C-alpha cells in the first residue's frame, strides 16, 4: 500500500524532471517576450549531445553541460532570427524543431559509425544517484525498494531541477535583472526609454531558455535512460510548453504543472499494473494525463484567475 504510493510519487518525479527543466526554459524566454516553441528541437539536440559527449568523456557532468550548450547553440539561432531580424517567433521555432533532431541524427552518424543512436553509458558513468548508497538492497521502508528508497533514490538531475526552480524564481522576482527581464517582456519601449538594453536582455533570455531545454534533454538521455535514440524525445518539449502556459508563465507554476503531468503518468502506469487489478483498457489509462490536463484547464480560469502571458510576447521590438 505505502510502496504503491511511493511508486506513484517516484515515477512522477522521474517523468516530471525533464519537463520541469524545459518548462523553466520556456518561462525565462517568454518572460523576456520571445515565444519559444523550438523547445522540443533544443531538447532533442541537448539529449543527443549529452549522451554523445557523456559517452566519449566518461563524465556525466561534462555531458550534462554539453547538453545545455547544445540547446543554447540552437537558441542562438532563434535569438538571431527573432530578436535581431524580428522574424515570426513561431516559424523560427518550428524550423528549430526540424533542425534539432536532424542535427542530432547527422552528428550521431558521424560519431557512432553511421548509427542513429549513441552507445549506452555504463551505469557508473551516468548522472549519479546521490542517495543510492544510503539505501541498502531490500524492501524495508528505508531500503532501496521500500517507501523512502523508491521516492528519494533519484538521480541528481531531479534534486538539481528543484534548486533551479527556486533560483529562477529568485532571479525573476527578487533581483533587478529579473525585473528588467520581465519589463522587456511586458513593455519593451518603456524599458528601452529607461535605458535597458532590450536586445541584450532578450538574447540572454533566449540563450538561458535553450540551455534549460538542453538540460531537460540531458536529464532524459543520461539519467532516465543511458543513451540517445531518435524516438527518445517525442513530444516532451511540447508538453513542457503547455506546462509553462498552464503554470501562468511562472517558474513555480511551470513546476507544479509538470509535476501534475508526471503524476498522471505515474498513476496511469500504476493502474495498468496487473496486480493492482483495475480492469480498465490500457488505451483509456493512457488518456489520463491528457484528460486531466483538459479538466484542469477548463476549471483553471474559475479557480486561479485568468491566464495572461507577458503583454509584448511574440511582438517584434523596434528601437525608436
Amino acid at each position, binding site marked *: 500500500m505505502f510502496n504503491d504510493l511511493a511508486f506513484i510519487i517516484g515515477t512522477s518525479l522521474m517523468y516530471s524532471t525533464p519537463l520541469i527543466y524545459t518548462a523553466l526554459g520556456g518561462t525565462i524566454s517568454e518572460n523576456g517576450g520571445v515565444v519559444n516553441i523550438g523547445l522540443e528541437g533544443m531538447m532533442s539536440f541537448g539529449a543527443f549531445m549529452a549522451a554523445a559527449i557523456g559517452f566519449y568523456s566518461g563524465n556525466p557532468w561534462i555531458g550534462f553541460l554539453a547538453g545545455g550548450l547544445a540547446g543554447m547553440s540552437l537558441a542562438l539561432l532563434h535569438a538571431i532570427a527573432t530578436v535581431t531580424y524580428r522574424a515570426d517567433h513561431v516559424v523560427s521555432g518550428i524550423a528549430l524543431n526540424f533542425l534539432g533532431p536532424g542535427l542530432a*541524427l547527422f552528428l550521431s552518424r558521424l560519431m557512432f559509425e553511421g548509427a542513429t543512436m549513441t552507445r549506452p553509458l555504463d551505469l557508473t558513468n551516468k548522472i549519479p544517484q546521490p542517495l543510492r548508497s544510503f539505501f541498502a538492497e531490500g524492501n524495508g521502508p528505508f531500503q532501496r525498494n521500500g517507501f523512502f528508497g523508491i521516492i528519494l533514490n533519484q538521480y541528481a538531475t531531479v534534486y538539481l531541477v528543484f534548486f533551479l526552480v527556486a533560483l529562477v524564481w529568485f532571479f525573476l522576482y527578487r533581483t533587478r535583472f529579473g525585473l528588467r527581464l520581465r519589463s522587456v517582456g511586458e513593455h519593451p519601449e518603456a524599458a528601452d526609454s529607461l535605458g535597458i538594453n532590450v536586445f541584450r536582455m532578450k538574447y540572454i533570455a533566449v540563450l538561458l531558455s535553450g540551455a534549460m531545454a538542453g538540460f531537460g534533454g540531458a536529464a*532524459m538521455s543520461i539519467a532516465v535512460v543511458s543513451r540517445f535514440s531518435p524516438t*527518445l524525445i517525442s513530444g516532451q518539449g511540447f508538453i513542457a510548453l503547455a506546462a509553462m502556459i498552464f503554470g501562468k508563465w511562472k517558474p513555480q507554476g511551470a513546476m507544479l504543472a509538470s509535476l501534475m503531468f508526471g503524476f498522471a503518468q505515474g498513476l496511469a502506469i500504476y493502474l495498468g499494473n496487473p496486480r493492482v487489478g483495475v480492469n480498465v483498457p490500457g488505451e483509456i489509462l493512457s488518456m489520463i494525463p491528457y484528460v486531466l490536463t483538459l479538466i484542469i484547464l477548463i476549471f483553471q480560469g474559475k479557480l486561479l484567475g485568468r491566464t495572461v502571458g507577458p503583454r509584448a510576447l511574440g511582438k517584434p521590438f523596434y528601437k525608436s
Partner: protein
Amino acid sequence: MNRFKKVALMMGMLLAVMALGFAGGGSQAATPAAEGTVSIAMVTDVGGINDQSFNQSAWEGLQRAQSELGVKVSYVESNQSADYPRNLETLVDSNNDLIWGIGFLMGDVLLAEAQNNPTQKYAIIDVAYADTPSNLIGVVFREQEPSFLVGYIAGKMTESNKVGFVGGVKFALIEKFEYGFRAGVASANPDAEVYVQYAESFTDAAAGKAIATQFYQQGADIVFHAAGGVGDGVIEAAREQGRWAIGVDRDQNDLAPENVLTSAMKRVDNAMFNVAKELAAGRFAGGTTVEYGLAEGGVGIAPSSNKHVPADILAEVQQIENRITTGALQVPFDMATFEAFMAAQ
C-alpha cells in the same frame, strides 16, 4: 529592407534544414554493385540504414545476396513516412527486378504502388494483405516461436517464479510475442506467474522504465519486452535493479551486457536473402504471404544467449526448437490459441 532580411533568413534556415535532411539520409540510390542479372532494391523505414534494427538487418540480407548470388542491390532511405511513395517511385524508374518495402508502416503505400505498376515485382516485410496482388509478396514472421523459446528460458531461470512482459501497443503483432512468451514460461515452469503490461507507446522510454521497475519491485526477476524505444527503459530498469531483461528483434546484449539474458530475434536478413535466392533462380511467389518461422531460419534466439544461460537449459531449448520445426509443437499466438494450449497442458 526588413522584410527582405526576414525572408532571406527564413530561406537560409530552410536550406539548412534541407541540407541536413539530405546529409543525414536522403536518397543514396543505386549503390554501385557487382555485375548481376537480377537487381533488387529496398526502401527503408524511418530510422535509416544503420538503425540497429530491421533496416540494417534487411540491408545485411541484401548484401549477402550480392556477395553470394551476384545480384545487384541498392537502397533508398526514408526520413519520414511522407518519403515512402517518392522513394518507391524512384526505384520503379531505375529498373529494379524487385522492390522491397521494410516495415508495416509502408503497407498501404506499397499496396497502392503495386496496383499502379502491375509489371513491377514488390515484396514487403511484416505485412499480410487480405488480398495480395500477383506482383507482390508479403513476408511475415512467427514471432511467437522465438518468444516461446525465451519464455522457456525465463521459466527455467526465474528464482522468484515471477516474470514480466512489457508490450508496446496492444495489437495482433505484439500479442504474438505476449502469448508465445506466456506459453513458453508455462511449459517450463507451471508455477511461474507472468505480469503483463502494455505501455500504449513505442517511444516512451520513461514508461517502459516505470513499468519494468514496478515488476521488479513486485518480485519479478526477468522481464521480456516487445516495445521498440520503450524497451530502452525496460533494459535500463534491469540494469538499475540488477535483474534480467530479455531483448527483442535483434541481439540486444550490447545495450547491457550483464543484464540482457537473451533476445527473441527476427531474422529479416534471412528472409530477404531467401526471396533473393528464389528470384535469382527465376521463382517469385507473387500473390502470397510467406511466413518465416524457426523452420525457415526466419526467427531465433540471440547468439549471445550462451553468455548467461546455462548449457543444459540451452540444450532443452534446442530440443524444443526441433519440436517446433517439425510441427510437433504448435506455439500459440493469440488469446484463443493460448487458452487451447494451456488446456492441453
